[in-house]
C-alpha cells in the first residue's frame, strides 16, 4: 500500500511518502470536531454500536451550542437532536439548574457525555488534528495532538465536522469561503452571557465585532480579547449581571469543502429542485454585512433590488454537497458544506448543523454496512432512515416563507396570479410580487404599469424591469435615485432597502450609458447626504451608514456601466478617482447591532474600485 503523510503547517500542505505505517487504534468512524454537528454524528454512530473517535479542540461537546449560543435561531425542525433537547430540559429540572434562554449549556455537555458513556466512543478533548495518512482517494488515518502527546489512529470513514474543514484542508479538498472581491467572510459576533434579573434566567446577547480568520489561533484569541473592549459593553444594563464572555466567537464562515457539487444561491433562487435531499436547511440569507455593494449580483438582487432580506428560504441539502469530490471515505457536517459564499450565510444555523451531523452519520452507517464509498451509498435507505427520525421531512421544504415586520400580516402563498402580482406591487410589501414578476418575465405588463399614476407601481415596475435587463423604466429609476427617495418598503422584518439606493443599484444593473453623468453628479454631492432626513433601522443605524450605502452603490453602478462601455471607462474612472481617491475623502460604516462603533471603509472602497478596474481591464 502506497501511503502519504500530509501535514498542514503555516497554511502550506506538505506531503511525504510513508512505508509500513501501522496504527495502534482503528475506528469505524473518526469525527473531527465534537461541536454542534459532530456530537450528534458521534451519538448516532456510537448508538449503532460503532467504534468511534472524536477529536475535539475544546474540553466539552456541543461546540457553540454549549459554549456560546444556547438558543436556536432558525433552522428546520425534526431529527434526532430533538430527543436530546427534550432530555436536557428534563434533566435540568432534576438538578435544580437555573432557567436559561434556550438550553442549559452544562446540561447539554452532560447529556451528550451520558449518551456516549457506555458506547465504543472515545472522546479526545483538548486535541487537534496534526496530519493525515492518505492512500489514493481514501484517508487511511490521522495524527492528532492531545494533552498526552501525539497519537495516531486509522478509520474506515471520516466525518469532517470541524467548522474549519481542517481534515479536508489537509487533504487538499477544501477552499476558503468568502466573497469574490476580497475573500472576506462574514463578520463574527462575540457573545456575552448574563443573568437577567427581570426574567430570573441566564441569557446571552451578541454583537457583530469584526472579521476573523478562525484558522489562525493567534488572530482568533486576539479577537476574543479585543472584543471585550468594545464600547457596546460599557452600556450594560443595570438589571443584568454579566457572567462572562463566551470562550467561543460566533464565527459564521470560514472554509468549505470542495464538494462533488457546489450549492449556489443562483440555483436556489431559480428553484432548481434536487431529487435526493437528506434534509432541508432553513433560514434567511443574511451575511451580516453592510457593505452589500461589494457582494455578488445575486445577493444584491435579493437584498437591495427586492428587499427580501428576512424572507426564509428552505434549501434541499443532498449528499453531493456534503462529500468532497476527491475523497471516497470523507463526509462533511456543519457549516463547511460545499456552498458558495452567498449560501454560506444561510446554511449555518444550529438546527441545520445538527441535522447535517445526523445525515452524515446515516450515510457513514450505510456505507459501513455495505462497504461502499460514501458517494455510492444508495439514496433509498438514507431517505427511509432520515424520514423515520424526522430529519428529512417534506414539510420543511416550504421554498419561501414570509418573515414580516411587526404588525404586518404574514403572506402565505407566492404562486401569484397576474392580479395578485399587480396588487402586491401596489402594496407596502412588494418584494414577493416583484420576485414573481421577475421570474415570470412579465415585461409587457410591467411596462404598462410604469405609466400608472402610482409611485409604488412605477418604481417597483422599473426595479423589476431592471433586474430583467429591460431599460423601459430608466427615467423612473433616474428620478428615484436623484431625489434620494427615502421610502422604505416593508417586505422584510428589517434590512429593507431604501428605494433611492435600490434605484442606484438597478441603474448599475441596466448599465445604460446615459446613467453615468447623473450618477457621477450624485457621487460628487456625497457630502450633502448627511443632511438628509434618515429613517434609522438595523441596516442604517448611523448617518454614516446611510452615506456609505449611497456612495458604495453609486461606485458599483458606475463601474458596471464602465465595464459595458469602454468609451466611457476613462471618464468614469477619472470621475470616481477625483472624489474617492482625494486625500480628504473618507467613508465609514457600522456593523450589525453595533451602531456606536464606526469602522473606516475608505480603504475597502478604494480596494473595491481597483479590483473592479482590474477586472474590467481583463474583460476588455
Amino acid at each position, binding site marked *: 500500500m502506497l501511503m502519504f503523510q500530509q501535514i498542514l503547517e503555516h497554511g502550506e500542505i506538505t506531503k511525504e511518502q510513508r512505508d509500513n505505517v501501522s496504527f495502534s487504534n482503528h475506528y469505524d468512524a473518526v469525527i473531527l470536531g465534537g461541536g454542534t454537528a459532530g456530537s450528534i454524528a458521534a451519538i448516532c454512530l456510537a448508538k449503532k454500536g460503532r467504534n468511534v473517535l472524536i477529536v475535539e479542540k475544546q*474540553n*466539552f461537546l456541543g461546540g457553540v451550542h454549549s459554549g456560546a449560543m444556547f438558543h436556536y435561531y432558525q433552522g428546520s425542525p425534526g431529527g434526532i437532536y430533538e430527543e436530546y433537547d427534550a432530555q436536557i430540559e428534563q434533566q435540568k429540572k*432534576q*438538578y*435544580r*439548574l*437555573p432557567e*436559561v434562554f434556550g438550553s*442549559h*449549556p*452544562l*446540561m447539554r*455537555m*452532560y447529556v451528550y*457525555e451520558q449518551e456516549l*458513556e457506555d458506547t465504543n466512543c472515545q*472522546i479526545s*478533548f483538548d486535541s487537534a488534528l496534526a496530519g493525515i495518512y492518505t492512500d489514493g482517494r481514501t484517508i487511511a488515518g490521522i495524527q492528532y495532538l492531545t494533552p498526552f502527546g501525539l497519537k495516531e489512529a486509522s478509520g474506515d470513514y471520516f466525518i469532517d465536522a470541524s467548522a474549519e474543514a481542517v481534515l479536508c484542508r489537509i487533504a487538499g479538498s477544501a477552499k476558503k469561503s468568502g466573497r469574490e472581491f476580497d475573500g472576506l467572510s462574514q463578520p463574527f459576533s462575540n457573545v456575552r*452571557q448574563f*443573568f437577567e434579573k427581570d426574567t430570573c434566567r*441566564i441569557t446571552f446577547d451578541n454583537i457583530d465585532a469584526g472579521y476573523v480568520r478562525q484558522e489562525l489561533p493567534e488572530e482568533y484569541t486576539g479577537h476574543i480579547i479585543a472584543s*471585550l*473592549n468594545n464600547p457596546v459593553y460599557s452600556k450594560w444594563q443595570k438589571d443584568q449581571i*454579566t*457572567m*462572562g*464572555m463566551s*470562550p467561543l466567537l460566533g464565527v459564521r464562515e470560514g472554509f468549505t469543502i470542495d464538494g462533488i457539487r457546489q450549492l449556489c444561491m443562483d440555483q436556489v433562487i431559480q428553484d432548481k429542485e434536487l431529487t435526493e435531499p437528506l434534509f432541508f436547511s432553513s433560514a434567511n440569507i443574511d451575511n451580516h454585512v453592510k457593505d452589500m455593494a461589494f457582494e455578488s449580483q445575486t445577493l444584491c438582487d435579493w437584498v437591495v433590488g427586492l428587499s427580501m432580506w428576512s424572507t426564509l428560504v428552505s434549501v434541499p441539502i443532498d449528499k453531493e454537497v456534503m462529500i468532497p469530490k476527491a475523497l471516497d471515505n470523507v463526509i462533511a457536517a456543519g457549516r463547511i458544506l460545499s456552498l458558495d459564499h452567498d449560501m454560506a450565510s444561510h446554511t449555518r444555523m444550529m438546527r441545520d448543523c445538527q441535522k447535517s451531523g445526523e445525515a452524515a452519520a446515516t450515510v457513514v452507517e450505510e456505507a459501513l454496512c455495505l462497504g461502499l464509498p460514501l458517494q455510492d451509498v444508495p439514496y433509498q435507505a438514507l431517505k427511509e432512515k432520515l424520514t423515520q427520525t424526522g430529519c428529512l421531512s417534506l414539510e420543511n421544504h416550504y421554498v419561501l416563507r414570509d418573515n414580516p415586520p411587526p404588525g404586518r400580516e404574514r403572506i402565505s402563498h407566492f404562486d401569484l396570479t397576474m392580479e395578485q402580482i399587480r396588487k402586491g406591487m401596489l402594496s407596502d410589501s412588494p418584494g414577493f410580487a416583484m420576485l414573481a414578476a421577475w421570474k415570470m418575465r412579465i415585461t409587457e405588463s410591467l411596462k404598462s404599469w410604469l405609466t400608472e399614476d402610482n409611485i409604488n407601481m412605477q418604481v417597483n415596475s422599473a426595479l423589476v424591469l431592471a433586474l430583467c435587463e429591460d431599460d423601459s423604466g430608466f427615467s423612473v429609476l433616474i428620478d428615484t435615485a436623484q431625489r434620494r427617495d427615502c421610502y422604505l418598503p416593508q417586505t422584510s422584518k428589517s434590512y429593507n432597502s431604501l428605494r433611492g439606493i435600490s434605484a442606484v443599484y438597478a441603474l448599475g444593473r441596466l448599465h445604460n450609458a446615459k446613467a453615468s453623468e447623473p450618477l457621477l453628479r450624485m457621487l460628487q454631492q456625497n457630502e450633502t447626504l448627511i443632511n438628509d432626513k434618515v429613517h434609522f433601522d438595523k441596516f442604517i443605524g448611523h448617518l454614516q451608514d446611510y452615506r456609505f450605502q449611497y456612495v458604495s452603490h453609486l461606485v458599483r453602478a458606475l463601474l458596471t456601466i464602465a465595464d459595458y462601455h469602454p468609451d466611457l471607462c476613462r471618464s468614469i474612472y477619472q470621475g470616481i478617482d477625483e472624489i474617492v481617491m482625494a486625500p480628504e475623502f473618507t467613508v465609514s460604516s457600522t456593523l450589525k447591532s453595533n451602531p456606536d462603533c464606526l469602522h473606516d471603509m475608505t480603504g475597502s472602497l478604494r480596494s473595491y474600485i481597483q479590483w473592479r478596474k482590474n477586472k474590467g481591464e481583463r474583460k476588455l
Partner: protein
Amino acid sequence: MPRAVIHDFPTGGYYILEMPVDTEMTYPQLRKQALELFSYTRTDSSDLLLKAADRICVRGRQSSVISDSNGFILCSCLSEDLLHAMERGEQFWRDYLC
C-alpha cells in the same frame, strides 16, 4: 467524597468542591460531579450554575480545576496558589466584565 464550600469574593461567592489531591477525573466525570454536588449543596435558590470545570490547572503534584468566569469551581485541594490565582482572576473579571 468531595465536599463543597463557599468562598466569598467582592463580586460574589463561588463554590469550590474540594477533592483529594490524587483525584484523577476526566472532564465528563468532573461535570457529572459538579452537577450532583451542586444539586444538594446549593445554599440559596438564586445561586446559578452555568458552567463547570473549564480548565485544569496543574501546580506540582496538586491538580486543580477552576472555572474561568462563571462561578462554579472544582479543585483537588484548596492551596494558597489556587486562592491567589482566583484572586487574580477576580481582578480580571472586575476590570473587564463586571
